[in-house]
């Protein structure tokens, strides 16, 4: 079985020989997956600030850098480099992370990055993909490699059983009248199961791309329901997209429930990703409870 990470590596390596614009910059993690003999493949050692700076310089010289590491070391540690070396220099790059919020919780808090999408949300002009299946990674990457914009792709070990088309906007997977649930990336299967278990008469939208946010798609979905009640289920920090839901629905009275990795506590627990899902009410039971209480009446 192919993981998202393997799909990413394959998409890059399939293109790098043919497209002289593509470069890869790593800081040890995954570096052995890329052809080190290619002069456009650069590993900088365990130096994440310089990883982003070098990517900036390559982009300034006309290349299309792919920058890759484990999420906290790709996004949080060199955050100012992302802000200034990529955004402020007005260059493009494709940032691809693994590890997500807590893919490997036995490694503890240092290897967890539930705040990555929220951090990118502080910076203008970033496209953010949160694929839910390895087969969604390939088309997203292929498009990103050809473009010259700023792209963040958040890969995870968690995935849905089936891939879905990854177009510009949200995909409607279920129609209902009681409200709308937006399920982001790997949250989809659990959301669908929770909605079915609760017999909730709701529309379910699937989002593999969260920035730009498909405001039109959400607005249309809400118009087709009897209640402007929107639940957003994200696999990272809860409420990361709630400001965009509010902005989308500002002309009509509405309710929003934000579900995601909780903000209130520093969890000092190891265990499995499933343990952490349960702790954050992101398992089917927790999501079912949220659906039941929010879409009541």
């Amino acid at each position, binding site marked *: 079985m192919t993981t998202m990470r393997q799909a990413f590596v394959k998409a890059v390596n399939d293109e790098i020989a043919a497209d002289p614009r593509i470069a890869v910059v790593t800081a040890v993690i995954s570096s052995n997956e890329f052809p080190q003999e290619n002069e456009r493949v*650069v590993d900088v050692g365990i130096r994440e600030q310089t990883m982003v700076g070098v990517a900036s*310089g*390559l982009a300034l010289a*006309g*290349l299309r850098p792919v920058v890759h590491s484990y999420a906290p070391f790709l996004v949080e540690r060199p955050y100012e480099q992302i802000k*200034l*070396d990529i955004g402020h*220099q007005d260059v493009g790059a494709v940032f691809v992370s693994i590890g997500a919020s807590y893919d490997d919780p036995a490694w503890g808090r240092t290897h967890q990055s539930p705040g990555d999408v929220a951090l990118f949300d502080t910076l203008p002009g970033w496209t953010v993909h949160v694929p839910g299946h390895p087969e969604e990674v390939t088309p997203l990457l292929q498009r990103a490699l050809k473009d010259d914009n700023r792209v963040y792709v958040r890969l995870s070990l968690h995935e849905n059983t089936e891939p879905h088309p990854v177009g510009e906007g949200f995909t409607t997977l279920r129609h209902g009248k009681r409200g709308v649930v937006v399920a982001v990336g790997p949250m989809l299967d659990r959301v669908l199961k929770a909605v079915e278990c609760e017999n909730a008469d709701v529309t379910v939208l699937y989002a593999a791309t969260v920035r730009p946010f498909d405001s039109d798609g959400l607005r249309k979905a809400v118009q087709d329901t009897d209640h402007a009640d929107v639940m957003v289920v994200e696999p990272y920090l809860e409420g990361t997209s709630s400001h965009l839901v509010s902005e989308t629905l500002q002309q009509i009275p509405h309710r929003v429930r934000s579900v995601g990795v909780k903000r209130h506590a520093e969890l000092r627990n190891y265990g499995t990703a499933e343990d952490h899902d349960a702790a954050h009410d992101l398992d089917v039971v927790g999501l079912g409870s949220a659906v039941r209480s929010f879409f009541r009446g």
Partner: protein
Amino acid sequence: MQRIPELFARMAGDEKHEWAAASTIDVLWVLYDKVLNVTPATVADPDRDRFLLSKGHGPMAYYAVLAEKGFIEESILDDWTSWDSPLGQHPDRVLVNGVEISSGSLGHGLPIAVGTAIGQRVAGSRGRTFVLVGDGELDEGSNHEAIAVASRLGVANLITIVIDNRSAMYGWPGGIAQRFAVEGWQTAEIDGRDHEAVFTALTAPHDRPYAVVAKIEKSY
């Protein structure tokens, strides 16, 4: 260089001697007058030399040189830092013709310069990357990541100029050049006010990354 005081005064107002105090002015002048293979006509040429001002603070000397060499209009110096002026207290590459990087936050230019130099190499270009940093700026750890990486990756078309006016809070025991030399850079130490010495150092042949430490007496 005769017109530099006049151009400086358009930004500095009555501070008649401020230009002479600028630690970067002599190195910048020699670079743009005699060393860099870039003109207003070649600012987008892939084969140009790239000059990255990492130490973006105190950019009057930079703007004065860019104006004198025709990259920017002299008239825009008069209302610099105003709302719609392209010239701020830190340069913005999107707003100013000929400016290769936006700088201001310290410790960003050298890692970016490693990237542009590798990019030039990948393109088969004869272009070189020059980056100017301050000795105080070297406190930022990101520089030391880049100093090590540049040498290990053999980025021979990279020249770092360190303006050393002894601004670093705790100094650099053993000297700044040593920090580069131990990582395998070729190094030179010069009087940063001596144009002949600056020119000779910046045009010296090198087959590995090259650091020129330009010492400046702190004045005024």
